[in-house]
């Protein structure tokens, strides 16, 4: 028995009876290690088999592709660490863009007003998701499945009502377009390489999320509400606020990517975005986030999104039928789930008797 009550032996004088874990053990209990190994293998694989994958241009195209999924995936990853799901994030990206473009087109106002309006709208949707989940106790899977379908239908229905077609009007002539494009969808050249601003935004969001998770009390609370809601509540963690905040973070990031898509393409298809919610979740899980919550990190989710970007383009660069991409993603997901299970077991098994 290692505890005594009156005199805990000479414990404080020899704080060195710590067990130093071996490097491999410490590495194995990190959430992102499986994803990192997979990313390296996949990178080497495409590097060897697809000649056009080897250029710097295509590397930055991969990064761009990863950032579009990766920005929302970071939010979804945080939310999953907090123990919840959001299936509505995929279509919410397009809801954000559609609200902005059609409002400004219909009323002829500056696009900044539309962007602000759709930000408020998306945050309200995130709040609603979180509020309903916390208030009713219904699993977030069902609540957000509901909002997912509502948004999917409304995106199409409202767009058809306003414009008569299923795509939003071209907004490139409306005031504010250029400045908004500079913020959300700019790109610059380094030599022959095009670097998209969204990649930088992605890195910034990942860094912010990683800092928040590991270094702030909010991060502590996110792990706690995902790991054990009741005990978090018992020690005074504001669980409702934390979870609603997570849903709103996801909807903020969905809005951000929605703005990127809108100002990059000037027009959006109202039916887009369906299925992306799963890509976010896959990126998070491949990156080592536990489906049950309480474990994961932001860098892992970023690596998960990078794996997505590499394979979706790598298959094209290699000249294969892109239809295989989904099959590949499925295999990745299954492998990731198995690795996660193992890592979790490693982390919670008693290391020393």
């Amino acid at each position, binding site marked *: 028995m290692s505890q005594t009550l*009156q005199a805990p032996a000479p*414990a*404080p004088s020899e*704080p060195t009876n710590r067990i130093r874990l071996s490097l491999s053990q410490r590495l194995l209990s990190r959430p992102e290690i499986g994803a990192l190994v997979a990313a390296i293998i996949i990178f080497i694989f495409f590097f060897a088999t697809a000649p056009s994958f080897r250029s710097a241009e295509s590397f930055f195209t991969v990064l761009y592709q990863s950032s579009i999924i990766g920005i929302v995936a970071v939010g979804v990853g945080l939310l999953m660490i907090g123990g919840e799901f959001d299936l509505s994030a995929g279509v919410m990206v397009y809801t954000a863009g559609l609200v902005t473009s059609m409002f400004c087109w219909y009323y002829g106002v500056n696009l900044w007003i539309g962007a602000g309006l759709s930000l408020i709208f998306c945050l309200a949707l995130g709040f609603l998701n979180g509020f309903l989940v916390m208030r009713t106790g219904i699993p977030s899977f069902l609540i957000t499945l509901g909002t997912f379908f509502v948004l999917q239908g409304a995106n199409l229905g409202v767009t058809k009502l306003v414009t008569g077609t299923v795509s939003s009007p071209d907004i490139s002539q409306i005031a504010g377009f250029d400045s908004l494009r500079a913020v959300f969808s700019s790109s610059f050249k380094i030599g022959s390489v095009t670097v998209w601003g969204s990649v930088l935004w992605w890195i910034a969001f990942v860094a912010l999320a990683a800092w928040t998770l590991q270094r702030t*009390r909010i991060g*502590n609370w996110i792990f706690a509400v995902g790991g054990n809601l009741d*005990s978090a509540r018992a*020690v005074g963690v*504001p669980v409702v606020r934390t979870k609603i905040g997570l849903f709103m973070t996801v909807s903020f990031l969905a809005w951000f990517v929605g703005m990127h898509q809108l100002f990059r393409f000037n027009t959006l298809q109202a039916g887009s975005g369906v299925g992306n919610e799963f890509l976010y979740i896959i990126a998070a899980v491949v990156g080592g986030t536990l489906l049950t919550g*309480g474990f994961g990190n932001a860098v892992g989710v970023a690596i998960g999104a990078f794996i997505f970007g590499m394979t979706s383009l790598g298959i094209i660069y290699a000249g294969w039928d892109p239809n295989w991409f989904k099959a590949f993603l499925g295999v990745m997901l299954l492998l990731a789930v198995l690795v996660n299970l193992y890592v979790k077991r490693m982390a919670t098994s008693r290391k020393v008797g």
Partner: protein
Amino acid sequence: MTDTLASHADRDLNRGEPLIEMTEVGKSYGAIRALSGINLRVNAGEVTCVLGDNGAGKSTLIKIISGLHPHNDGSLRVDGQEVSFSSPREALSHGIATVYQDLAVVGLMEVWRNFFLGSELTAGRYPLAGLKIKQMRTIADTELRKMGVVVKDINQPIGTLSGGQRQCVAIARAVYFGARVLILDEPTAALGVKQSGVVLRYVAAARDAGLGVVFITHNPHHAYLVGDHFVILKLGTTALDKNRAEVSLDELTTQMAGGDELAELSHELKR
């Protein structure tokens, strides 16, 4: 080494002074009456044991004191002041800390993160203020050692500790953050004999440190080892309410097993 649980407890606690007084407290969930006419006193430096079968109202009672659900009838006074808690945070600010059976800690988080959960040390008040991680590690490590809980590595996930140790960390944390009343919800239910011993010794240490302890349990043997006052709940009402001097372990055990009902049953099933 004089540094034990006692030296960390609140110094204003005077043994025997009432910390929590419940008079005729009742609680209904819609049409269902979960609890009625409960009188309970928790004194400093004493262990009040609440025993009862499943569905007797033990958890409802804890929920009222720990702030998860407010009561409907009667009065709950803490330090002589009438209160009605609407959140665990409020109860905590009155010095009432609750340690739940399996839910005391977050298994995948490190020991030090668990120790400071909900009371983190930060470099500022703004939302992205950095945690003082080094300081928290050192404090958690030394404080736990001082309070008699020795963990091998403060950075290991707390799920790797034994069940008894986890309960002890949760209790030590509560004491460190100034708890004056500890509510322990079945702390020994999921534990083996040896581990239960660890926790019970710790409960006794908390009592000796002057804290008021509410010890909820199924097990009259565990209760009798540390208890000063015993309350048995049955179907939401008080079935027994006695001081240690007025009751024997046998009586407690019989009452817990069903008392008169058991006698009737044995008469009926006589062979």
